[in-house]
């Protein structure tokens, strides 16, 4: 009895979690502007309509610039942070690492508001660059977390061996450390990219006159006629997200296998 109850709970939970996402592609291909059952036939019109939306393309371009820059900056910062936190010990290290990781649990609302206040106070014009700033702040902890596990599984004597065999610190980093943490770097890039692309609050607060994908979609929902096209866009985004996260997880696991480490669980 107990097992059956738990099973029903688990199934109910999964339906609650994923049914809305499954509805996305269903209505994206449904030949009606009204989002309701019964379905009224198959169409790809919404995808065509979405494709022709020039404002959407501009928002997408903005979002890609933001996400790409965020991923690269956060990952570079993450490499420094992870390297420092796994290899060196210095006074106040615990507190410092804690402060780096804090945005992970800080409500985005607060980050967005305080950044907005500061930027307005020092009169920095709002644009996609200010969004990048905010996104780097919230994605860097993810980068540090992912890269720390990559750096942690590195045996310190590998570096010493390279040094012992005549290499300097720079060539050791290039020849030994970088190739061994490369899977972690790729995984960090992909996850930061995905987080930034999805993000709404900071993008909405800090983008100013520029529109990014998430706030553009939100805006379009005010016009019922535009909703099916947004569902079509959503369908594509879900697909792209799943692919990106799968690639990230693949590289994370391969990295652990390569260095002979133990899998202590990642994001997926």
């Amino acid at each position, binding site marked *: 009895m107990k097992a059956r109850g738990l099973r029903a709970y688990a199934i109910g939970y999964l339906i609650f979690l994923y049914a809305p996402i499954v509805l996305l592609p269903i209505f994206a291909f449904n030949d009606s502007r009204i989002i309701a059952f019964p379905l009224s036939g198959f169409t790809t019109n919404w995808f065509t309509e979405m494709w022709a939306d020039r404002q959407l393309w501009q928002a997408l371009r903005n979002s890609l610039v933001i996400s790409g820059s965020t991923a690269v900056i956060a990952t570079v910062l993450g490499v420094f942070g992870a390297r420092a936190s796994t290899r060196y010990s210095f006074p106040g290290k615990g507190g410092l690492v804690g402060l780096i990781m804090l945005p992970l649990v800080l409500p985005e609302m607060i980050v967005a508001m305080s950044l907005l206040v500061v930027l307005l106070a020092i009169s920095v014009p709002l644009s996609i660059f200010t969004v990048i700033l905010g996104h780097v702040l919230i994605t860097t902890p993810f980068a540090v977390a992912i890269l720390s596990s990559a750096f942690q599984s590195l045996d310190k004597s590998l570096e010493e061996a390279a040094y*012992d065999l*005549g290499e300097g610190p720079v060539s050791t980093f290039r020849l030994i450390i970088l*190739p061994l943490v490369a899977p972690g770097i790729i995984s960090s890039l992909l996850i930061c990219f995905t987080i930034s692309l999805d993000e709404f609050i900071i993008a909405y607060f800090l983008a100013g006159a520029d529109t990014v994908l998430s706030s553009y979609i939100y805006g379009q929902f005010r016009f019922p006629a535009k909703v099916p096209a947004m569902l079509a866009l959503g369908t594509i985004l879900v697909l792209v997200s799943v692919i990106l996260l799968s690639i990230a997880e693949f590289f994370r696991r391969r990295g652990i296998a390569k260095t*002979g480490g133990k899998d202590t669980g990642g994001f997926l």
Partner: protein
Amino acid sequence: MSSAKPVPPNSTMIEFRDVHKYYGDYHALRGISGTIRAGEFFSLLGPSGCGKTTLLRTIAGFEGIDGGAVLIDGKDMARVAANKRPTNMVFQSYAIFPHMSVGENVGFGLRRDPRSAAEKARAVEDALEMVGLKGYGARAAHALSGGQRQRVALARALILKPKVLLLDEPLSALDKKMREHMQVELIKLQRQVGITFVLVTHDQEEALVMSDRIAVMFEGEIAQLADPETLYRRPNSKKVADFIGTMNFIPAVVIGETGGQIEVEAKGLGRALLDADQCPAGQGDSPMVGLRPETLTLMYPGQTTTERTVDGVIDEVIYFGDMTYYDVYLGGTDVEVRLSMRNTPGRPILEVGSKVDVAWSASALVLFR
């Protein structure tokens, strides 16, 4: 690979001059002095935390020193970084680069070598052949067994023809059989290449088997530096005697000195005259004589000996197959000694409680006082 130049016997390769090392408040190396000779197999032996690995790493250049000097081949290493020193190291974890093939690992140190690619490839093949891994060059490094990884680490370090090869507990990760096999191989390899080997180990048997000379370390100091036989037969302190092999310690009283010899009265054994080399400098403890178990013999009925004998009662028998350990009370006193006896055909195992004569000789005694 016999590039090592013939070296004059007993010339110094490494010299420690009052080396000190601190980790914060912890005094890890407390004034290490001593020399390692060119071409010898030298071991740093001691329990964990005695500073032996730290000392090895000061030779490699991975640890700086806070006092004194480390000289390699007559040159002070104070301003020489690890990647410029004429030493190479075999790490405890072997530190095989997991993203490279066996050949790439072995050839890693040749990256800055001006020789042609073909010559380097030949050098790699030669190095692999030397460690018994001929033809393994293309294999993935992470797919090797423990013993094979160790050989790759050896080949990778030796391909640079260093003046000194440093080995940080290289055998501790192997199982017993493999370990004994690799001990013999390492000795052969060292004789073949003629390079100075410095081995760190906590295994006294391994050190005795492999080394020309051994430095026994405790708490950041060298307690004794000697060849294996001297260390075993004439340890200079109770601590060294206790760490290397098994030693019976028997309370004793110094009676007096006559003509360079020292007369002692050992409990349960009686009086004995000891030569000066049997009496290392005093430690201030209450005097004890030390006696290795295998220098004692149990006398079977009808057996005779020219050695002195003393009455004993067998208190405990532990059977090992090739050996039997007996705990024996000597002379009816409370002195217990542990003997190890080879089991030979026709000699039954003696029973607990039986009385036996124990033969001993004064020349096997060491006095600690």
